[in-house]
């Protein structure tokens, strides 16, 4: 199998590799697919990108599956790039020969509630301890958080506890405290946001990008007095954030390099911003 792969790699030297495959984080996947679609629409074939390239169709594919699946596919060589929406651990880096990473931007996790929940009017700000108490189940009812709120059970929504997004939240907010066992684990950011939209007692950490896309349907709260705004995220004042990365094994082929440059260009950054994330540059 190894041999097979090597031969395949060798032959790509002479036979131009017109296909680039991205795999990984479902947070990043829509971004990458947007940029790549525009890139493909603009140029159609590789020779139009650069005269040195042959006249071959531009095939850039984006496939989701989760950040770790992205890392796995890079290790296995089944994709050219991995998309990761958390930091890559040293252990993972060790498995990727000639590891390279490109930071596209930052995503913040906002502690958000349903607009029917009066808390954002009464108490716009939550401290880290309060969030800990809410998520760990120490506060069971909303009136424990703020006495004038209704005596209704708090519905905690998280992402999967083993995943990247929760990892960030755990590290930055929860510390050693554990999220309560009967919290709802949403299978995706979309589901998490849907749950907050649909349940007036829900609270969860919605991606900054999705809060912007669902303007008004969910309300982000301040954390320790810092609002999740672009400036605060860039400056690092808003602490619950994670990097959006593209990772690669080995050196880039010229055509891959062209596309990565496209990603990191002003155009690319604009797209990232329009998707609701904070661009790296």
């Amino acid at each position, binding site marked *: 199998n190894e041999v097979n792969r090597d031969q*395949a790699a060798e032959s790509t030297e002479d036979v131009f590799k017109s296909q680039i*495959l991205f795999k990984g984080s479902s*947070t990043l996947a829509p*971004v990458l697919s947007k940029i790549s679609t525009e890139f493909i629409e603009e140029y159609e074939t590789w020779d139009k990108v650069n005269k040195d390239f042959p006249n071959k169709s531009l095939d850039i*594919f984006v496939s989701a599956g989760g950040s770790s699946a992205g890392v796995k596919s890079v290790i296995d060589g089944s994709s050219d790039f991995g998309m990761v929406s958390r930091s890559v651990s040293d252990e993972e880096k060790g498995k990727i020969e000639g590891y390279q990473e490109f930071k596209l931007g930052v995503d913040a996790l906002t502690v958000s509630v349903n607009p029917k929940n009066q808390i954002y009017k009464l108490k716009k700000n939550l401290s880290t301890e309060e969030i800990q108490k809410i998520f760990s189940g120490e506060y069971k009812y909303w009136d424990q958080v703020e006495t004038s709120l209704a005596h209704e059970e708090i519905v905690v929504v998280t992402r999967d506890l083993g995943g990247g997004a929760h990892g960030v939240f755990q590290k930055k907010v929860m510390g050693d405290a554990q999220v309560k066992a009967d919290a709802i684990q949403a299978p995706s950011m979309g589901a998490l946001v849907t749950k907050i939209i649909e349940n007036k007692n829900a609270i969860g950490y919605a991606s900054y990008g999705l809060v912007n896309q*669902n303007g008004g349907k969910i309300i982000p709260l301040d954390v320790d007095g810092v609002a999740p705004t672009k400036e605060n995220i860039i400056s690092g004042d808003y602490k619950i954030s994670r990097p959006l990365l593209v990772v690669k094994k080995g050196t880039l082929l010229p055509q891959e390099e062209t596309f990565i440059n496209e990603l990191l260009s002003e155009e690319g950054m604009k797209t990232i911003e329009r998707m609701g994330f904070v661009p790296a540059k």
Partner: protein
Amino acid sequence: MKRTNKHLGIKLWSILSGSILIFLVLYMNIYIFSKGKEGLSIDFLMDMPKGFPLGTDGGIFPAIIGSIYFTSIACFFAGMIAIATAIYLNFYCTNKRIYGGIHMVIQSTAGIPSIVLGLFGYTFLVVHLNFGISLLSGGMVLGIMIFPFIEVKVEKAFQEISKELIYASYALGISKAYTFFKIILPICFGEIISAIALAGGFAMGAVAPIIFTGGVLYAPEPKGIFSPAMALPYHLYILIGEGISIENAYKTAAVLLVLLLVLNSFSIFIGLFRKVE
């Protein structure tokens, strides 16, 4: 002796169940179609996904094509191995142990979560056999997923043919193969097609197996079986999962249902030309 009120229980039971069934079918379809009909247009069918983020605008043409490809490969692959296995078990296998063993394996793997099948496909087909993330890999994993469902139903269809009829053919010195094609297949044809259609629907709506093996967020129509492709359920999954556009998700679901309807009417159409026993 008047017995009009006998079996009232079973009558009520069946009518109630029938009504529930019809209600469910209508409810699900009307729900999806009513949510999805707005803005459902030819353009939506024939266009590429567009908008910002991708999928909020434009259409789902490549996903339709991709789904057709995925489902066809899955049905072809699963149909072939499932029918062959059913033939073997029902007409050739004489050893009770082997028979039981194969059954156990088939029925136990039927419940393996499709995501695990997807990972298996990823390891075995994508990486090991070097098929890459492609229509072929995805289609085959879908095929493996629906294989038990087709096998069990086809085998049941075979079992229900009167033994004496089959023996009547064997007694003329006629081979099993010939008996199969001339007597058994014509009788079971409708049921085989309906088994494949049912399982095909399952495959057409499945996401988990293709996440790792063949589905991508965006791709033009596939060029061959070694290209990755879009698929309707995957597209849906992303639209919903990343909260991109619930409206377009319903529209996509409505299209998927229409596609299924076409698939099914095809099977009914074939069934019409065959007479069952």
